């Protein structure tokens, strides 16, 4: 959840230089001056042990991390994505940064931090009550406070930082952590498993409908640090939760690494709705700086008749590598993926989803909208896999790309593996441009160029925005407007 972006309005005389110079403004790009505890840069078994000790973790957790670390050492860096990036020096990154005074409760949180979140519009304090959204905020590596504790506890809902969950609810964490994304799943998941610093833990007990939207807000502040958060959401039988995630980072010339893992577990009849608005710093208009965003998100429809739905609006990061997936294990379980990914200037995104049909009568739906502007590259990569036993599985995929300008690219890589002959798979894909005709039509009705672009892009994304909770939909729309500044001309 970022601060309300105010739009630059400027005369757009079709002058390409002026338009370029306007560029884009990144509103969340400030740095908070706060005393920070770091671990020294570098990665080794020793660092993993120190990190685990700093967080006062039990022995099993330390061992779990070490095992992941050892596995990671044996893995090659993945190179199959359509991304150009300079190799990451994992020894130059600090794997832990925390504001110096550890908070004991919300009242103890450093006022400077609260000001930061206020600037970003996170309803952390009493404003939370008005907003009606329970927030867990992760600043660099540490969770700084969770609102609405009491109200949630009354409903039997656990919503706390991952560090706290490991201390307070070790048996639950141990039961589910790594059960969806195993430590050795992929290069970045292994790295995350070794060094994850914090994140959120959500547990909704049997039959409970979580009384409010839950939200986590991530921010990278410290220099030369990576952020490795780990989120685990478990919904027991017939439980329901809607979870929102927002991200920002300051403007810096160096690339910063973000490698998160999110695991969702839905038991019988449970429903999880997970929405993301990702606005990490994308780098400047020349492609300098920006966040490398390598994220593994996976949901497991473990029980029959369960449902997991991912909705994402991705406008930030220099590089996005992300494929929120659903394993449809339970019979008649449902997986959904709604995505808007926007790239501008030199941003690169390789994103999509995986739907793995295992249970009978499972259904999945994929709606992906990619928007490319400037010199950016935007790829959809999706896998629909139907296993032998998935009798009557159905998938519908719709994949649309919108190009703005002449120097950007859009690519679609759909993969299908079908092992059951009763499955029905549909795939539709379109690529279009904002046409001169559309622009002239809007302008001839009195609508200025930039507003016309916003309107056309908004229309293009309608199907996905409809899936977002109201306040997020409004924010997502504004975010697209800001991100597209200077895209026409």
């Amino acid at each position: 959840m970022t601060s309300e972006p105010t739009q630059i309005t400027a005369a757009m005389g079709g002058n390409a230089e002026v338009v370029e110079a306007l560029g884009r403004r990144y509103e969340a790009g400030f740095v908070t001056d706060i005393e920070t505890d770091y671990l020294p840069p570098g990665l080794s078994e020793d660092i993993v042990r120190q990190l685990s000790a700093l967080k006062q973790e039990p022995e099993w957790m330390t061992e779990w991390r070490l095992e992941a670390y050892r596995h990671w050492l044996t893995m090659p860096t993945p190179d199959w994505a359509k991304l150009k990036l300079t190799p990451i020096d994992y020894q130059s990154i600090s794997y832990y940064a925390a504001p110096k005074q550890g908070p004991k409760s919300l009242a103890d949180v450093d006022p400077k931090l609260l000001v930061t979140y206020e600037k970003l519009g996170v309803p952390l304090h009493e404003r939370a009550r008005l907003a009606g959204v329970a927030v867990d905020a992760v600043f660099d590596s540490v969770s700084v406070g969770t609102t609405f504790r009491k109200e949630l506890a009354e409903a039997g809902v656990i919503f706390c930082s991952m560090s706290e969950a490991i201390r307070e609810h070790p048996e639950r964490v141990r039961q589910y952590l790594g059960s969806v994304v195993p430590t050795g799943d992929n290069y970045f998941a292994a790295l995350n498993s070794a060094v994850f610093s914090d994140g959120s833990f959500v547990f909704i007990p049997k039959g409970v409908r979580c009384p409010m939207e839950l939200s986590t807000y991530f921010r990278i502040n410290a220099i030369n640090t990576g952020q490795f958060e780990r989120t685990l959401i478990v919904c027991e039988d017939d439980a329901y939760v809607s979870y929102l995630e927002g991200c920002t980072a300051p403007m810096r010339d160096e690339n910063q690494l973000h490698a998160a893992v999110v695991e969702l577990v839905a038991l019988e009849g449970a429903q999880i709705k997970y929405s993301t608005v990702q606005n990490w710093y994308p780098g400047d208009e020349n492609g300098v700086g920006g966040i490398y965003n390598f994220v593994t998100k996976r949901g497991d429809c473990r029980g029959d008749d369960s449902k997991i739905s991912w909705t994402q609006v991705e406008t930030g990061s220099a590089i996005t590598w992300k494929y929120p997936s659903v394993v449809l294990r339970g019979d008649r379980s449902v997986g959904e993926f709604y995505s808007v990914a926007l790239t501008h200037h030199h941003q690169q995104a390789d994103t999509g989803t995986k739907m793995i049909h295992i249970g009978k009568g499972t259904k999945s739906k994929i709606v992906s909208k990619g928007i490319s502007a400037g010199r950016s590259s935007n790829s959809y990569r999706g896998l629909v896999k139907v296993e032998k036993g998935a009798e009557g599985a159905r998938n519908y995929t719709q994949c649309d790309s919108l190009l703005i300008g002449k120097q950007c690219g859009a690519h679609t890589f759909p993969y299908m593996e079908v092992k059951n002959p009763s499955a029905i798979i549909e795939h539709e894909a379109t690529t279009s441009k904002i046409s001169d005709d559309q622009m002239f039509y809007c302008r001839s009705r009195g609508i200025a160029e930039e507003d016309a672009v916003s309107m056309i892009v908004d229309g293009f994304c309608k199907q996905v925005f409809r899936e977002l909770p109201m306040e997020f939909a409004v924010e997502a729309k504004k975010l697209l407007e800001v991100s597209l500044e200077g895209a026409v001309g």
Partner: protein
Amino acid sequence: MTMLKIENLHARVEGKEILKGLSLTVNAGEVHAIMGPNGAGKSTLGNVLAGREGYEVTAGSISYNGVDLLALAPEARAAAGVFLAFQYPVEIPGVNNTYFLRAALNAQRKQRGEKELDSMQFLKLVREKLKVMQISDELLHRAVNTGFSGGEKKRNEIFQMAVLEPQLAILDETDSGLDIDALKQVAQGVNTLRSPERAFLMITHYQRLLDYVVPDFVHVLADGCIVESGDKSLALKLEDHGYSGIGTSQPSGAAA
């Protein structure tokens, strides 16, 4: 009072000269029909007036209410009261028709320094116009022109015109592709909007529309110039004799 004064207009499209010295004067309250064979430059005239990119004016001038129209951006022309009903209305998927129209109206009002309409005020206005235009409100809830039939698209253009209330309305072959019922509806819409303050420029290939919207003046455009001007009877003469043989008489240029 003179609203539009086009003098010796020359315009190029993709390097090719289409308009070659066109002159025309339109006064408030008048309805002018521009007729002519394919490729004469009829649609080019409409696009130049509305300010479409790629239409390069190489000589001549267009004065609109005393202002140099060519110096204005398309959206500023719209705010000043110029409206072009498109020959091929453009689809904008996902953008609600009503939302689009309200954004357009408010953008124009804002440019004119008028107060923007809120949703309630706008809804009231739309209801009034719907009645006049005999348009089903189902059309309002769909995306702009998306999946509309040819007739629906043309009626939607006229509906937009009714809501935006322009001073100078240019209808670019609004009658083409319409069946007789749709044509009558469009004509009725135009007739309802006729007023002493408003002028119409109807670009058409056939005289059929002119049976329902009776023009004050008819001009024949051929090879980039107006070659003959007259009243309604000129259109009937064209229907009998075709465009061949037109232009041998003295071009009258301005008709007012």
